[in-house]
């Protein structure tokens, strides 16, 4: 009975049926991909398990085929492993098929690796890192990425040829890895891979003239000592805000549509005021009453680098699988020609 089940698990026909079913399902289902970008365009931006849970589960009418193809692929992978084990048991008589069965093992390892990455991995696609800042990685608590330097290499006719980001990967204050990330040269650290996506500039404040013709830079965190002895602190700069009727302020975008500063003013006598200054409106009455004038001159920008930070614990296993597939194919080719030369089973 057990022998019959095992024989069935290793069966060539089962492999062909499963591969055919997966092929037909993916052929039909994949044609939905270009026409339903709201569902499928995020597949590469999230780990597969997250995509299945957050996106696919909500649109089962158009994604059911994917679940079915996934189950059949897992069965196909199990069948491949069974075939490999069966070959191992009879390796004495079938060693000349080593190439073919290394290929089987490679495929099985790649499938296991993908499944592992799909369940335990995570992806941050095109995350924005500002120059000189340390940014937390949301899916990896306690870990940060710092953009230390950024240099775009432009081609003579305009488009960028490369984007070189010098980064540090940190656990708390401890540097885990440091290096340069550029096109086709990622930073890799224990399953984490950082690749470049794009870059740009974002407004971070304004150059301004104060009432006494003093020229200053209004940047987040900056404290300006005024000539009358008072102090002006820039608590926050937001390039584009929306003000609700309740008075609450919401960040809207990174374009300079409606910039605003959150300021704290400390008068020489120690009285404090804190509030918002909307650049398109007059200076708040409290600041005007204190004799302060601010004339904005020009916006200040900072470079940012958009990077993809992915974690795939199965990547190493997939590499081993790919290597075995390559060796398997080369051995199979060698064995094929050897058999032909020796007229050994010339029909195969």
């Amino acid at each position, binding site marked *: 009975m057990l022998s019959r089940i095992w024989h069935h698990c290793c069966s060539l026909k089962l492999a062909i049926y499963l591969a055919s079913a997966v092929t037909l399902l993916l052929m039909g289902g994949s044609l939905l*991909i270009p026409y339903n970008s709201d569902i499928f365009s995020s*597949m*590469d931006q999230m780990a597969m398990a997250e995509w299945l849970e957050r996106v696919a589960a909500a649109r089962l009418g158009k994604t059911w085929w994917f679940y079915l193809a996934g189950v059949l692929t897992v069965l196909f992978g199990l069948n491949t492993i069974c075939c490999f084990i069966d070959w191992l048991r009879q390796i004495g008589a079938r060693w000349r098929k080593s190439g073919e069965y290394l290929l089987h093992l490679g495929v099985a390892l790649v499938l296991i690796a993908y499944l592992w990455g799909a369940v335990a991995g995570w992806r941050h696609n095109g995350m924005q890192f500002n120059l000189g800042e340390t940014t937390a990685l949301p899916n990896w608590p306690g870990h940060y990425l710092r953009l230390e330097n950024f240099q775009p290499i432009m081609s003579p006719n305009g488009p960028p040829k490369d984007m070189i980001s010098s980064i540090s990967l940190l656990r708390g204050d401890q540097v885990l890895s440091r290096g340069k990330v550029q096109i*086709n040269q*990622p930073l890799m650290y224990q399953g984490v891979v950082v*690749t470049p996506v794009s870059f740009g500039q974002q407004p971070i404040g304004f150059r301004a003239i104060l009432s006494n013709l003093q020229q200053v830079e209004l940047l987040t965190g900056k404290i300006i000592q005024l000539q009358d002895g008072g102090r002006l602190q820039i608590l926050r700069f937001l390039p584009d805000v929306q003000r609700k009727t309740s008075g609450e302020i919401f960040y809207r975008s990174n374009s300079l549509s409606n910039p605003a500063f959150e300021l704290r003013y400390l008068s020489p006598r120690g009285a404090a005021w804190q509030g918002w200054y909307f650049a398109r409106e007059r200076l708040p009455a409290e600041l005007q009453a204190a004799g302060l004038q601010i004339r904005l001159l020009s916006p200040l920008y900072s470079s940012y680098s958009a990077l993809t*930070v992915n974690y795939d614990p199965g990547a190493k296993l997939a590499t081993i699988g790919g290597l075995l*597939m*390559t060796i398997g*194919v080369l051995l199979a080719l060698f064995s094929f020609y050897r058999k032909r030369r020796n007229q050994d089973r010339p029909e195969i």
Partner: protein
Amino acid sequence: MTNIHLLQTATLLYSLAVFGYLLLIIFKRRWLQLTAQTFIISGFLLQTVCLLWRWKLAGFLPVTNLFSTLFFFSWALAACYLYFEIRYRIGASGLFVMFLNLCLLGIALQRDAELPTLVPALDTPFFSLHIVFSFLGYAFFAMAFSLGVLFLIQRYVPNQQLPRLTTLRKLNEESIFLGFALFTLCMVIGAIWAYWAWGYYFSWNIKGVWSFLVWLYYSGMCHAKFVRRWQGTGYALLSIAGFGVVLFTYLGIGLLLESNHPLE
């Protein structure tokens, strides 16, 4: 003389070879076969020189738009044909492949042959290897298609000029096996490159999915040859259907659908 003149001359030589093989079917003269072979070898050499010339001019293997991929596919097909011709003397059995080759060149020569600028992500040896193995794989699948058609012709309308059914079957199986082996290398290299460039080794873009399907389909065919019921006619039909999948993956997706492998 420009590199395109070389390509035009190669096309002319291939056309003469096809004409020679057609005459061979009617007149069955040995010298016709030798002449056709000479035309193909000369055409292939000219096309190789043209490819190397364009490679030197561009500074990279120029296979990034429709013209250059059609050109490279055609070169790979001619190389594949020569492999079978030199190894097995298949003669007029390569007629379909050479006819397909002419179709590819016919379409290519109507398009802009200017060398495209290279997208930075493609500036890596991984890309060149990925493309070379991919089109060599496609070429063997095209050869299998041709041999599949010939198998069916020989089976239902026997012809003295065509090889025996067992030979056609053997050649078809070899073509599928070699195509699968090369396409496997293409997939492995593509996966490594994707991981380095984008941080994942498999993309759920439609091109990625269909490339996997091509691989899965032909891996199924490598197994199907051991199933008695699928040997012969069934295998020939699968070879023909498989080439449909290849054409859709290469041209259908690149031209009709939005993908990460656009053809312009």
